[in-house]
């Protein structure tokens, strides 16, 4: 089911959380609401869920007006950052909750719970309590619980935020696979642009209550519309008005007419790439990212004078995009 949000406004006292936000989420897609804290992304998600009421504007789910409906009637599944597990119930009872509310038959509930626990790889954990589970397991339980009632829309609020890095990356991959199997319209909130790029079809980048740019991950990364977008989506070097990504900084040992002079300050081995910190023209600090082969070939070391040019650069505020010809 598609989601449509039209001209939604929301304030908390003096703080403007959502400023005339409109959005179309296609049915069956996997969309990330991305942005820094305070950007309004969680608020938007909760307005879609009905956990917050917009001051103005409308929400449509599957074509039907949902603005006035409480969360109970919106046919959504919601997953919270801190799991919101019913700590007084077993894992099985947690997952069964939505079905029991709908008065489904006992055998059907049992079957479905078993199915879901299997899906989230928690089979055998049914009789445990949430307090006996790890963070990652609790979140998988929360997901199973949300999916149990076969919602039309799945909403996740920073679902992996409370987990450590390794579990996070496992669950990200897992969410993507799940979506590929089930094709439920899914919207999730994150502040981590890597996560958004890894998991979603579409990224909606927000800042200060507004949607700044919407599109595929590569569109936001390669064709950012504002400086904010470029900075948020990845590392950026700024030289005067020109913005360059570290991996677009070309280092040469000889000048060629389009290069600037620079001095190598530091060479850092970051594992899968090499980072080279330089000072350009005696002033601007620049960070370049090279592959190990490239770095080896150039034989860089601190103090070495070199020459740099941007292989690809951007300027903003009305200036045409400057593309270097290599």
């Amino acid at each position, binding site marked *: 089911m598609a989601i449509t949000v039209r001209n939604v406004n929301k304030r908390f006292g003096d703080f403007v959380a959502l400023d005339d936000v409109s959005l179309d989420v296609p049915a069956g897609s996997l969309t990330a609401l991305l942005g820094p804290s305070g950007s309004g992304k969680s608020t938007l998600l909760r307005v879609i*869920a009905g*956990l917050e009421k917009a001051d103005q504007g409308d929400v449509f789910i599957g074509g039907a007006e949902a603005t006035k409906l*409480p*969360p*109970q*009637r919106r046919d*959504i*599944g*919601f997953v*919270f950052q*801190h799991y*919101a*597990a*019913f*700590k*007084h*119930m077993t894992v099985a009872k947690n997952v069964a*909750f*939505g079905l029991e*509310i*709908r008065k489904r038959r006992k055998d059907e509930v049992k079957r479905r719970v078993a199915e879901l626990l299997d899906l989230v790889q928690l089979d055998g954990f049914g009789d445990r*309590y*949430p*307090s006996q589970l790890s963070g990652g397991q609790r979140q998988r339980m*929360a997901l199973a*619980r*949300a999916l*149990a*009632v076969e919602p039309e829309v799945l909403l996740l609020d920073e679902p992996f935020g409370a987990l450590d890095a390794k579990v996070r990356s496992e669950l990200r991959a897992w969410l993507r696979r799940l979506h590929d199997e089930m094709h439920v319209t899914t919207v999730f909130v994150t502040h981590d642009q890597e996560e958004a790029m890894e998991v979603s079809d579409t990224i909606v980048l927000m800042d200060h209550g507004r949607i700044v740019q919407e599109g595929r991950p590569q569109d936001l990364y390669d064709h950012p519309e504002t400086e904010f977008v470029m900075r948020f989506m990845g590392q950026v070097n700024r030289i005067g008005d020109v913005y360059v990504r570290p991996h677009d900084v070309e280092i040469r040992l000889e000048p060629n007419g389009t290069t600037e002079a620079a001095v190598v300050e530091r060479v850092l081995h970051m594992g899968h790439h090499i980072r080279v910190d330089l000072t350009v023209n005696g002033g601007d600090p620049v960070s370049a990212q090279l592959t190990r082969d490239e770095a080896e070939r150039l034989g860089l070391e601190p103090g070495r004078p070199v020459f740099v040019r941007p292989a690809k650069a951007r300027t903003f505020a009305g200036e045409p995009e400057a593309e270097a010809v290599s």
Partner: protein
Amino acid sequence: MTTVALPRRRASGAALPSVAPGVAITYLSVVVLLPLSALLWESHKGGLDAFWQAVTAPDAVAALKLTLGAALLVALINAVFGTLIAWVLVRDSFIGKGLANSLIDLPFALPTVVAGLTLLTLYGPNSPIGLNITYTRKAVVLALMFETLPFVIRSVQPVLLELDREMEEAAASLGARGHVIFRRVVLPNLLPAILSGMALAFARAVGEYGSVVMLSGNVPFATEVASVHIYSQIQSDYVTGATAMSVVLLSISLVVLLSISALHRWSSKHDR
């Protein structure tokens, strides 16, 4: 006293003069332990027979029955109204809520005899609404309701404040309506606090004297509670009778206090 051994070694950091703990223990012994031992000694002195006779005397049994029955009733009333009031104080907001919240502690601050007198103004012989319940068992229950008011409320409030609202939101997102959310998600998490408050209310009600004595008329076999029975036994110099009933009441309080500790241990099982 002999099982408490004060250690030689000290935790690093602050300490009082080394004689202080010894003085404090002596103080505790003189003020609490000594009188308590006298009671236990007295209860053994007459032998089991005399004790049993005093405890099973018809007026003693009547007093005990009334006391326990009223205390239980009041514990249940508090379980319902206390939880309700705690809910309103935590989740609702209205003018005067802060004042109402502070007033809840009034029974803790007001002397019991004054509480009795206050209730008499509204529910006694000169009641402006014509409701005179003095000399009835209802008066006993009313006095106990006043004195035990804060227990369940103050027990439930902090739990309600700490309760993860997201659990309720999750239940809503799964389709549960308000009363279902309360019954299946909120109440189970409040239950230990409610029970704990009930136990404290019960223990308090069992020993209550000042407010009840003003209100109930203290008629033996009708409106005389256990504490008043003890008082009249003392006045008549029936030491055995007073001792027996005292030991019974003390034992009941002890059992209740132990169950509260057990309750705390059981309820923190699922926390993490």
